[in-house]
């Protein structure tokens, strides 16, 4: 890392440290009632407890299962539909504004419908998360395929590329950076949707647990769960960044 990068990293860590110190100070000075903001050390004790006795992992398992099921569906549907539409200028003209329009709607307004049709178990969470994550993936796939330089297609045609070769060797690698960024946004939106739908109408998972603890005024435990979700989000985000930068290194040439 360069000097600038180190400085940036130091400031980032400093920001987190200041937040925690502020939290500790507010707790010690009794500026806010511990029912609203429990002391930092109490939350840490709770966090250690739920991690060491394993309760948090039961909820995590449910949430991650929903997330990965939803994401797998969104990926399969988004990439397939995106490629099919993206290959034809006409279908792009038809569907891109349509899909963009739907994506602009806060799709969470349809959550009651998902619950009505699929119940309040994990099925409705998976379907909702998959639906929401589908949009950025399909839109970026359409955009990526549509933006492939026409010269590359002409070159491949002149060389006698088959349809499959054109897809595998030209369209896919050319569109990959844009598609990967859609895949990443899709993951973040999928995670958000799963946690959100658990909080609104759920029996299980991290989201529903946070709401239940909050309603039971057990704020210290609730904060412990919130911190745990933040940790999980940070880990998943780091993994995605690594994946994306690997793809971008390959595509950096363009």
């Amino acid at each position, binding site marked *: 890392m360069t000097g600038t990068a180190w400085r940036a990293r130091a400031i980032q860590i400093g920001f987190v440290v200041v937040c925690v110190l502020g939290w500790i100070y507010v707790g010690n000075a009794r500026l806010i009632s511990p029912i609203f903001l429990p002391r930092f050390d109490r939350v840490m004790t709770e966090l250690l407890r739920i991690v060491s006795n394993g309760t948090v992992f039961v909820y995590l398992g449910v949430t991650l299962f929903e997330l990965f099921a939803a994401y797998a569906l969104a990926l399969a549907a988004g990439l397939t539909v995106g490629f099919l539409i993206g290959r034809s200028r006409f279908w792009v003209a038809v569907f891109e504004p349509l899909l963009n329009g739907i994506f602009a709607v806060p799709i969470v307004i349809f959550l009651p419908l998902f619950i009505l049709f699929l119940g309040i178990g994990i099925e409705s969470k998976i379907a909702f998360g998959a639906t929401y994550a589908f949009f950025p993936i399909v839109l970026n796939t359409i955009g990526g395929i549509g933006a492939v330089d026409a010269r590359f297609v002409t070159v491949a045609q002149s060389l006698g590329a088959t349809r499959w070769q054109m897809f595998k*060797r030209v369209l896919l690698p050319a569109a990959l950076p844009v598609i990967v960024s859609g895949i990443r946004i899709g993951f973040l939106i999928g995670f958000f949707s799963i946690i959100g739908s658990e909080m609104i109408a759920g029996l299980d998972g991290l989201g529903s647990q946070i709401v239940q603890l909050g309603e039971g005024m057990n704020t210290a435990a609730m904060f412990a769960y919130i911190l745990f979700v933040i940790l999980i989000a940070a880990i998943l985000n780091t993994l995605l960044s690594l994946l994306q930068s690997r793809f971008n290194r390959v595509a950096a040439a363009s």
Partner: protein
Amino acid sequence: MAFAGDVAITVEKVSHAYLKGAQAGLLQTLREVSLEIRRGEMVCLIGPSGCGKSTLLNIIGGLIQPSTGVVKVDGRVIRGPTPNEIAFVFQDNTLFPWSTILENVKVALEFQGVPATEREGRARTTLAAVGLKDFADHYPHQLSGGMKQRASLARALALQTGILLMDEPFAALDEQTRTYLGEELSRLLAKTGKTIIFVTHSLSEAVFLADRVIVMTARPAAIKATIAVAGAHPRGPAFMASPRFAEQRNELYALLRDEIEKTVGGLVGEEPEEAAPPMLAEQRG
């Protein structure tokens, strides 16, 4: 086995028009172009920019269908890309940026249908032939403009076709690099005996490279004149310095001048002689 001198490519009364917007109507780009190109011949197409030279080249290569007329290669009508007989070198950088130079050549061979076991060897041999042996594992963005075009040439040469179609391949390069690559191409030409059609808008490039320069009119393009250029390949700086070279270059410009005037609107010709700024007159001379 075909021998040098017989006809490799026949263009018969090829016209081309396309719909340019709903209101604009048909735009005719080519008007009944007929042409015969002998095996091993180097032909340059030159004409005002936008006249349809590239369209003609793409029709010969089967990338565009003519509105009327046919193109025949070895007597067979061209109906689509024929990568076993015709290779392209395009203007600008059309190497795949996500692949190394070697991979670029190999993927071209894969598209052409060369068995996987032969691709690597053929790609390396061809890259060595154009002087890019040490750059096989570089990505296109790591090479200079001239090297990129040499790599594009290697991609086309690796296909081992009898015909090479080049669409202003050196247009994006500076004049020195372009002149040098022209010399290289001339040397290569002498060795391989390929049939080459070369689209250019450079007068010097046309005279330097061509056995025959075909001058096209402004759009819709037809053949205005053909100039034969004597001199065996490889040609070098001596060829370029000869009085005959300058003579033919001027002859070419005289032929093109009217057509360029039609394209750009013709300000120069309408002004009275003495009103022309001296600077401009000098530049033209």
